């Protein structure tokens, strides 16, 4: 049971991480700095609960705010460059943050033992949850409540003018400028919001693992952060969630029984998923189809229609695969 609770915790934290990259991606920016913001949130909030004995929620919010402040500062110079240059700039920043924590010692004695971050050894004894008697289940619920709040907020933001503005900048910067939008303000705001969400994700991560070190926030994590929204699709926040479940739940944990073959399949299945669903795992069309199917399922008058719908859906999937195979055959000249 604890395994599944642990998996749900990982999925929750990674969903937040993916959503932090989602916000930035909406403006067309690819940021590899999200792991760095996560590290800042993790260290700041853990130091607040462990060393300053703060309560959890204010510590998480402060960690998020610290990450947001850094993201805002980084945003101004970084967003002057575009495309690949921005990727390199944010990558360099993320590594700089990681190396900062590699060299960061701040320990104080508490009850006979020294606690606090200790360079390469990391930050041990983040014991807020055990000390306050939280069970794994309660921690999992707390993480998912946070995910729920963030997803609701972003879902609503997507439908407000802000969502349209972010997407407009992502689609065509020249047209967005000419419609009167201040590109720098929009991009830096997105970066700041993304930094905040990544910081909160880091704080949650630090507290449920109880031990963090610089290696937890490396380039691989940053790559995952942008892979989720790209794989899931940018039409809505649920795409990111679906991608995290797909990667963390299915590819990493679900295929563990395959042993070493899993690593080989991992990349191949991501490529396959992007090939089958170029608009993202959950594109706008699927989403509206799914919503109307759900509505019909809940309506007793359409009970049998829903079953037909499900069969049609399977048929669609079959046709999709046949098309794909035909395409590949063509590619090999068969």
């Amino acid at each position, binding site marked *: 049971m604890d395994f599944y609770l642990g998996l749900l915790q990982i999925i929750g934290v990674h969903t937040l991480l993916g959503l932090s990259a989602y916000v930035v991606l909406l403006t067309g920016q690819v940021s590899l700095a999200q792991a760095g913001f996560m590290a800042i949130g993790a260290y700041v909030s853990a130091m607040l609960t462990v060393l300053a004995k703060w309560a959890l929620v204010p510590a998480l919010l402060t960690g998020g705010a610290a990450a947001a402040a850094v993201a805002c500062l980084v945003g101004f110079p970084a967003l002057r460059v575009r495309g690949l240059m921005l990727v390199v700039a944010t990558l360099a920043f993320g590594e700089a943050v990681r190396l900062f924590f590699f060299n960061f010692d701040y320990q104080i004695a508490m009850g006979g033992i020294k606690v606090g971050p200790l360079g390469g050894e990391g930050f041990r004894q983040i014991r807020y949850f055990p000390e306050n008697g939280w069970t794994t289940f309660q921690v999992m619920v707390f993480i998912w409540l946070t995910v729920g709040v963030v997803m609701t907020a972003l879902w609503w933001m997507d439908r407000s*003018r802000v969502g349209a503005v972010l997407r407009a900048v992502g689609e065509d910067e020249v047209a967005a400028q000419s419609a009167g939008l201040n590109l720098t303000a929009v991009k830096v705001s997105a970066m700041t919001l993304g930094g905040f969400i990544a910081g909160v994700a880091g704080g949650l991560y630090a507290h449920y693992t109880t031990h963090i070190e610089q290696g937890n926030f490396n380039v691989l994590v940053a790559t995952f952060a942008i892979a989720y929204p790209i794989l899931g699709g940018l039409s809505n926040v649920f795409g990111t969630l679906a991608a995290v479940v797909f990667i963390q739940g299915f590819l990493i944990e679900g295929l563990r029984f395959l042993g070493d073959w899993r690593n080989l399949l991992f990349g191949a299945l991501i490529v396959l998923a992007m090939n089958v669903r170029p608009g993202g795992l959950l594109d706008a069309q699927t989403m509206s189809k799914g919503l109307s199917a759900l509505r019909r399922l809940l309506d007793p008058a359409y009970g049998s229609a829903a079953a037909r719908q499900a069969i049609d859906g399977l048929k669609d999937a079959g046709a999709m695969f046949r098309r794909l195979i035909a395409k590949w055959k063509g590619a090999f000249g068969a």
Partner: protein
Amino acid sequence: MLELRQLCKHFGGVRAVDQVSLRVAKGEIFGLIGPNGSGKSTTVNLIAGLLLPTSGRIVLDGEDISSLATHQRVARGIARTFQNIRLFGQLTVWQNLWVAENRDRQQRAQPVMPRWFWGCEGDRERLGIALEFSGLAHKRDDLAANLSFGEQRRLELARALASQPKLLLLDEPAAGMNAQEIEELDARIRRIRDAGVTVLLIEHHMELVMAVTDRIGVLNFGQKIAEGSPAMVQNDAKVREAYLGTAAA
């Protein structure tokens, strides 16, 4: 209203715009014409702020705006459309209008957060009028990418008007249109002018330019070679030379 003073834009050794001086009066429709590559689009980009001039000044209502960023010029009342339509294809028709920042100072003074999330007070009416003007009210929630070519042109025009400009720059709005659509465009441009907006029209389609404009400036190789009423420009020897070449003699 708008004044260009010895405006220059050089790309390396190429003088795309060279010492151009123009005055556009308030409330008129000013046409800017010239053969391909004569610097018309560069001039529009300079006025809109997408390019910064090498030298010279751009003055709007007595204020030097030469070094302002594009969005600041929109805030001062300059809006534009593009030669190759640039809409936000994955946004709906309504969202395309909603994105446009409002110039009205009173509305810009409203608190930032509600303005960002819901738009200014009175947005609905203002955008409703722009939507009505574009004739796309029935396609309010369609994606802009799914509109037909003519509808996309109309939507882009409506988006430019949504920011309530004083000066509207139209970069070849008739490109790719048929005769009937051009007639509609003619009427639309006049309606915009009648609503108190000054129009700067860059266009290749001579019938439209001659019919709708009050005055015309002619560019060739980045320099202004003529300025005056449509009739004057049509009979100008230099203009004929630029368009038709010199007589073999």
